[in-house]
């Protein structure tokens, strides 16, 4: 019995030891992180402006914006009781952003994994671990992840 409980605890707490250098991403799923938006592609609309637009939605409390060469990724967290209307919120936000910035292509997601990966990308850019090209590749990988359904 004790051995089983220890094994379970070890599996659950395994994350505490790893990736110590990443501070925000470690608790990104549990607390508000508000990561700085990432602008890989410098031309066009400002990511700050997009983030401001996203934060105006009252159901959203945490948002990460990444602007790449072709797409703009918007990952956000929805307030707990509003999660019942997740699809509607996603649709409304997508429509709102596409209406406001008609020239851009938006990938909107409320998935925790997408948000977590956006925070990790921000941290790696801050630490100087990735350049713009690699960051764009990472962004494509995150977008691909969003499209996976199984």
């Amino acid at each position: 019995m004790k051995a089983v409980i220890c094994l379970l605890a070890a599996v659950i707490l395994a994350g505490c030891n790893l990736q110590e250098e990443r501070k925000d991403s470690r608790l990104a799923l549990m607390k508000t992180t508000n990561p700085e938006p990432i602008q890989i592609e410098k031309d066009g609309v400002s990511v700050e402006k997009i983030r401001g637009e996203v934060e105006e939605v009252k159901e959203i409390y945490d948002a990460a914006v990444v602007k790449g060469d072709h797409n703009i990724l918007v990952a956000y967290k929805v307030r707990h009781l509003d999660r019942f209307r997740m699809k509607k919120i996603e649709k409304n936000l997508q429509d709102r952003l596409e209406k406001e910035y008609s020239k851009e292509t938006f990938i909107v997601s409320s998935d925790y994994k997408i948000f977590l990966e956006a925070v990790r990308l921000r941290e790696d850019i801050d630490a100087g671990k990735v350049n713009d090209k690699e960051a764009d590749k990472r962004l494509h990988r995150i977008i691909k992840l969003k499209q996976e359904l199984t």
Partner: protein
Amino acid sequence: MANKNEKKTPTQQQYDKLNQKHELKRPVLKNCLRAFFVGGLICTIGQAITYFFIYFFNFTEQTAGNPTVATMVFLAMLLTGFGVYDHLGQYGGAGSAVPVSGFGNAVISAAIEHRTEGFVLGVGGNMFKLAGSVILFGVFAAFVVALIKTILIQWGGL
């Protein structure tokens, strides 16, 4: 109820009264609380496993559900084999049976019960004796819900 009592002899009625007096009351509230905490604990572990898959593997919130369910069922099967889940079931009642881990318990406990009858007709034939109904009604309920959703989307304009 009155008709039943009319048919009973005075001795039987007297016995019924005595029985009611000494009958132990079912601790419904206590059982509910226990089920709530045990079920909640199992679900918390499930949530922790989902976060584990999201953090350390390439699973999204949407895709992490499948490996989480598989892990929970596997853990419940192991705990049933070790004899731990029986105690948990006795304490938590429905709280341990309703989450998906109860499915693993139903499969393995039936397999253990019939292992003396041989691997094919015993274990193989009876393994899904309890869990079979869960699969059948689960699939059927999913089919009905999907049908209703399709109708509502196609013709209801949702």
